[in-house]
């Protein structure tokens, strides 16, 4: 059944993925990297899978059209795990954005070279086993993509569904692109998305990759992203969680070429019973690489935040320069934060540091504002915004940064980050 609806080059990885899944099993909380997230509980509901590959009965553009003002972007829709056909197959000789099936037909060799090259743990194997289609973004040698590539992942439907999303990003030498992925759900039904992103950054390429999670509390996400960077490439990665149910993101970055540069940022704003777990592994394999990580959490209600960030410096990766900061605000007595910043270093000529804090808002600053007529509620809100903006300010695209600032403010003021423009925002979680 699984092999009926997708390309044979996708199908041929299923058997080995199933074997891996059988051998390793799904991770339990006894596995160190999954200590804070109960993956098995996330998979417990009886989810439906879209094997029949029926065409979409609606136009997702009518439902969701959150374009970032001032930023020319091309929108690409993925509904559940269906890549909308209208989006698919943008291609000239220098770039392609479209469905995996389409790309595998057009460039089978290129697809085979990169698809499932990095692999991952049993959760990535689960996705490889079940995935039907996904999105490929290929940027040719030296090509600079002018427009922002905006990928909209939508979860809709009146029954519990599981979507297995996949992205394959290939940046050839000297290529440049900016990608924004918006995850949005409009259903009170439990929806689970497994997601695997594989990105290969060639020599001297530059990728800006941003994710915004703005989903309903019933939704859950099991994401794995693997980025492989060649020499002198640069990756700007940011993940902003404005709302969501239970999410677990594993991000692995491998700096394999000399002088590769990585900037990673993360912002989590959570309340209610939301659970957000970011697990990062940055591996410095080559000399002279730089990595800079900043993750911030603001936890309200009885939400839970987990952060694990490991920097590994392999033997020979001399002149490594790495910084990692994880700062967290618990603004409710029931909020829980678990953090694990880690260093594993096998080379001596390195400069690595990390810092982690869990605390509250600065009372003196609140007092200062109170003296100037800003009440405690407004004062807290301003401080929270300022705390969050440290992350937003690291986003390279100015219009997107401004948009995010307003969404963050909206999130703090009204508990929602909806734009109000489109149908989905006007009837959230219906």
């Amino acid at each position: 059944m699984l092999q009926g609806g997708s390309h044979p080059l996708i199908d041929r990885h299923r058997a080995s993925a199933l074997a891996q899944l059988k051998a390793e099993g799904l991770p339990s909380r006894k596995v160190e990297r999954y200590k804070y997230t109960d993956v098995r509980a996330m998979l417990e509901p009886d989810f439906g899978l879209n094997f029949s590959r029926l065409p979409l009965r609606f136009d997702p553009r009518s439902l969701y059209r959150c374009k970032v003002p001032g930023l020319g972007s091309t929108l690409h829709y993925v509904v559940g795990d269906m890549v909308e056909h209208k989006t698919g197959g943008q291609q000239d000789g220098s770039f392609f954005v479209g469905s995996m099936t389409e790309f595998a037909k057009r460039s089978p060799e290129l697809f085979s070279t990169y698809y499932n090259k990095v692999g991952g743990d049993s959760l990535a194997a689960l996705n490889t086993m079940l995935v039907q289609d996904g999105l490929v973004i290929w940027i040719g040698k030296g090509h600079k993509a002018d427009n922002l590539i905006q990928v909209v992942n939508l979860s809709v439907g009146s029954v519990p569904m599981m979507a297995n999303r996949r992205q394959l990003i290939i940046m050839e030498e000297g290529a440049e692109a900016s990608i924004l992925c918006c995850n949005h759900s409009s259903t009170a039904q439990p929806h689970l998305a497994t997601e695997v992103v594989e990105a290969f950054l060639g020599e001297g390429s530059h990728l800006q990759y941003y994710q915004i999670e703005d989903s309903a509390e019933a939704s859950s996400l099991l994401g794995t992203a693997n980025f492989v960077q060649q020499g002198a490439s640069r990756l700007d990665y940011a993940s902003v969680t404005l709302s969501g149910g239970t999410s677990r993101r594993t991000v692995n970055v491998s700096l394999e070429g000399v002088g590769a540069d990585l900037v990673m940022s993360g912002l989590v704003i959570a309340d209610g019973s939301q659970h957000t777990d970011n697990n990062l592994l940055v591996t410095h394999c080559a000399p002279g690489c730089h990595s800079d990580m900043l993750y911030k959490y603001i936890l309200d209600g009885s939400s839970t935040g987990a952060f694990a960030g490991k920097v590994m410096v392999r033997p020979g990766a001399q002149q490594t320069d790495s910084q990692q900061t994880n700062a967290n605000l618990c603004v409710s007595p029931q909020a829980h934060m678990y953090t694990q910043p880690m260093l594993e270093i096998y080379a001596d000529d390195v400069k690595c540091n990390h810092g982690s804090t869990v605390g509250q808002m600065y009372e003196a600053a609140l007092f200062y504002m109170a003296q100037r007529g800003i009440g405690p509620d407004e004062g807290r809100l301003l401080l929270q915004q300022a705390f969050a903006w440290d992350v937003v300010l690291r986003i390279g695209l100015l219009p997107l940064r401004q948009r995010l600032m307003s969404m963050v403010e909206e999130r703090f003021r009204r508990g929602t980050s909806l734009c109000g423009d489109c149908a989905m925002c006007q009837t959230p979680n219906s």
Partner: protein
Amino acid sequence: MPQSQDNALVRDIANRDYEYGFTTDIETEVIPRGLNEDVVRLISQKKGEPQWLLDFRLQAFRHWLTMQQPTWGHVDLPPIDYQAISYYADPRGRKRQGNSGEIDPELQKTFDKLGIPLNERLALSGVAVDAVMDSVSVKTTFREKLAEKGIIFCSISEAVKTHPDLVRQYLGTVVPYRDNFFAALNSAVFSDGSFVYIPRGVRCPMELSTYFRINAINTGQFERTLIVCDDGGYVSYLEGCTAPMRDENQLHAAIVEIVVCQDAEVKYSTVQNWYPGDRQGKGGVYNLVTKRGLLRGDRSKLSWTQVETGSAITWKYPSCVLKGDGSSAEFYSVAVTNNHQQADTGTKMVHLGRNTRSTIVSKGISAGRSQNSYRGLVRVAPQAEGSRNYSSCDSLLLGNACGAHTFPYIDVNNDSSVVEHEATTSKISEDQLLYCNQRGIPPEEAVALIVNGYAKDVLNKLPMEFAVEAQKLLSVSLEGSVG
């Protein structure tokens, strides 16, 4: 530093010798190798223990049989054949019967050579010593003087006989036998160790010290130390240890339990210098220890200070459970690894009481082909309102074949506590070296100066008697290259 000097430094560090590696030729009674219930009963019988303690041992042993040796540490611990070890070795053996109170001259000589004063003529040293070789306590000094203040300082075997109620009240309350694999093993077969009781309101007039020495071949050491500091008491306790150089690995699986009552203060300092193995990584002691303090009373204080230079494998986390409101704990550590040594060490600070405070300062120095890891947990319970922790973990790398790792865990469960952690890893600063060289300080002395300065924060926390030894040990570790 120029490459050639850098290499010379690393080579010299790797070439240092272990000066406590001699053996003592003394008649020792060793029970046959192997571990089963009969061995547990035999140990208990040899020590003349009451039934309740035998039951405790047997319970622990039965639980140990259900457990697996843990593998989560960042150490490559080879499988240990627990049936190939002898669990009881008594160096006094047959000589003891005819000559009670006096110790064998060979033993006296051994401890003299180690610089441990067993003779009270050295009263000026101001340290009372409990000397433990293999499975038995050889001698405890200054007992009478301490007894005048009501302080009990003796071997735990003796305390079981003379103060059974106290031992029974506290034994296993801080580290229960179910705690972990090595704690269960120790609880089943523990041999000797020290027992300290500081009565209410008494400030111990001198440093108390226990010196552990493994001598017999193919034995393990499983000592157990229990320190109870009653309300308003104070004690500073020192622990030292060495072992002979042998090609076989030796197992050391100890438990240290500390109970700190209201307004009491305990300072626990360790200079760990077990045999680390040779330059190829052959031999050495596996130091797999559970150390924990329970800050039971309000405003109680506990400070762990450790200098770790020995052992082939060190796997330990001296911990504090801050239960009393307003209690405070400190952990200061310098861990030096060289050649093929592996260390996975750090601390746990579990905040249960309100307004509790903890500080962690850890300095790791890696050389040769060694692996040095800091692993720490700071947990703030929901009821531990207003708690505060600060952790700082620095690692220094001397050589490109070694590793330095940091694995902190921070769990915060309320909105009124503040936890801060920071860590850095680097090699010795070129700028600092250049600065020293410009002022006529040769490279090796400059490195020595910088390393000593780097560890100073921790060394300063040691009692004077130990600080001298620790500094000596550190300079021996870096001898030839850094002064």
